[in-house]
């Protein structure tokens, strides 16, 4: 009885998903379109005459941007982990004075609109002379992930049994030793979640890139696409091919690390 009732639901589910993902399909379809077919009305709904010229354009024009985005992403992950994991260990297990206000500040920090941070960073970066550098973007992008990272790590580390940490202490391990050889190894899941999101947010950032690195020699892929749209708005196959390539980290996340994604979305929002 169960299967007979669930088959129509599966069909409805597939139709809904197809409808929802139509823009993604369309991006792929247009990325394979010949330039001459681009203005065709009605457009080809299927890539019947696929061309890879759009992707060749990506290889020719966008590789440096992709490399910069990769570097910014990795730098952001490293900075975020280095700052947030120790703080969470303290908040979860060492019970510092002022821990509660700090958690409150971290929650509020997530609410600050990016444009405000961008303007503040712009005036600071200009004074310090690090405007238009890729690693300046590492600093700015990490602000998207650090509060999230501390909250995720704290939630997880609070669940590590106190006995485990007491046992390490009894064996003579100092707090740093306990952190490095007990707490961090068991925190593999939140490390993956925080790293993935920090990378994804840095990779996707547009507002910091367009304000803090608009004239730099090393720019991320979001600016690569943005300039593409501005410069040659006839060759949408190239633009969409770049968009497809820029979506690879998201696709990777979905296929390889799906359970971490849902954990990241719900973390902080819903208390279990």
């Amino acid at each position, binding site marked *: 009885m169960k299967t007979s009732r669930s088959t129509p*639901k599966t069909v409805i589910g597939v139709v809904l998903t197809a409808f929802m*993902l139509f823009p993604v399909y369309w991006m792929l379809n247009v990325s394979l379109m010949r330039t001459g077919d681009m203005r065709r009305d009605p457009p080809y709904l299927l890539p019947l005459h696929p061309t890879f010229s759009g992707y060749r354009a990506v290889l020719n024009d966008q590789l440096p941007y992709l490399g910069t985005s990769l570097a910014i992403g990795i730098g952001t992950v490293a900075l975020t982990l280095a700052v947030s994991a120790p703080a969470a260990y303290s908040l979860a297990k060492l019970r510092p004075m002022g821990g509660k206000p700090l958690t409150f500040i971290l929650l509020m920090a997530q*609410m600050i*609109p990016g444009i405000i941070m961008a303007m*503040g960073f712009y005036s600071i970066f200009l004074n310090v002379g690090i405007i238009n550098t890729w690693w300046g973007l590492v600093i700015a992008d990490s602000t998207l992930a650090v509060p999230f990272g501390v909250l995720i790590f704290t939630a997880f580390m609070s669940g590590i049994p106190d006995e485990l940490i007491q046992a390490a202490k009894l064996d003579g391990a100092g707090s740093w030793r306990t952190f490095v050889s007990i707490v961090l190894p068991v925190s593999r899941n939140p490390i993956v979640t925080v790293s993935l999101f920090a990378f994804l947010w840095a990779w996707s950032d547009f507002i910091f890139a367009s304000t803090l690195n608009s004239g730099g020699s090393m720019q991320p892929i979001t600016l690569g696409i943005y300039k593409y749209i501005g410069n040659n708005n006839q060759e949408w196959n190239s633009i969409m091919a770049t968009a497809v390539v820029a979506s690879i980290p998201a696709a990777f996340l979905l296929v390889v690390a799906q359970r971490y994604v849902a954990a990241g979305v719900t973390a902080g929002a*819903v208390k279990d």
Partner: protein
Amino acid sequence: MSNTRAAIRVPRVETQVSARGPRVPRLPRFIAWAYLAPVVIYLIAFYAYPLYRNLDLSLRDYTVRSFVSGDAPFIGLDNFREVFADPTFWPAVIHTAIFVVVSIAFQYAIGLALAVFFNNNFRLSSTLRALFLVPWLLPMIVSASTWSWMLNSDSGVVNTALNAFGLPDINWLTSPTWSLVAVILANIWIGIPFNLVILYSGLQNIPDNLFEAASLDGASSWQTFRHITLPLLRPVSAITLLLGFVYTLKVFDIIWIMTRGGPGNSSTTLSTWSYELGFGSLLPHFGPGAAVGNLLIIVAMLCGLLYIKFQSSEASR
């Protein structure tokens, strides 16, 4: 409240210690703070200081030259007065309100419907649910440029679909009537996954036997939804809506990439206006731009406070 919790904790720790012998020394406070030091320094340098600089920007008369030299004269609230008197101000406020309310209403309604639908475990349900996350994971510029092309007046697939139903072409991005609708449409699409995931996890926490009892009592699925699902989901709904509000208020990329707030001011919101003032032209108005940003932050913070208050009262129940 934090005092009472600390008071409860301390004896617990000490009983543990005495049970295992007196050898475990309690950590001095400064060690706990040593681990917090990086994040505290980080927050001061990369949150508090930019926010302070932004506030400073909004209270001074900055030009490109004084931006570098840093000797802009203090003008008090003149930037705010200038912003309030600007003909763009009220349209931007109204567009922001429409953008936020309409986006959230649709995101929430569609997200809830999908969450209820996916709460029935059918074949492929978890795979399909995962695929629904795609719009949320894609970089904004990818979604925004894809929607731009789909909504293109002449060659866009959306107008093709409208024509197929006998409807005329719509100038989604180039007519002042439709530009706000267009960016809201794209933003709803991006926000559905977030609502779906959070509401779905809320539904998962409702015990199955409640639904079983309702169906034994002969409740229709609408009655079940109305009298069981919706009331029990209320805390999660409130959190979803409040977070959605804050996130939607922040939206900048999608509007800027699709319409740049135009044509005219027809899709300008407070975020895009702030960006436009500060960075959108060759002659930047950093002061007014920062002033608009500071207005935005006040609204966001109020919502943030509501959210935190709500969440902690839920957690203590």
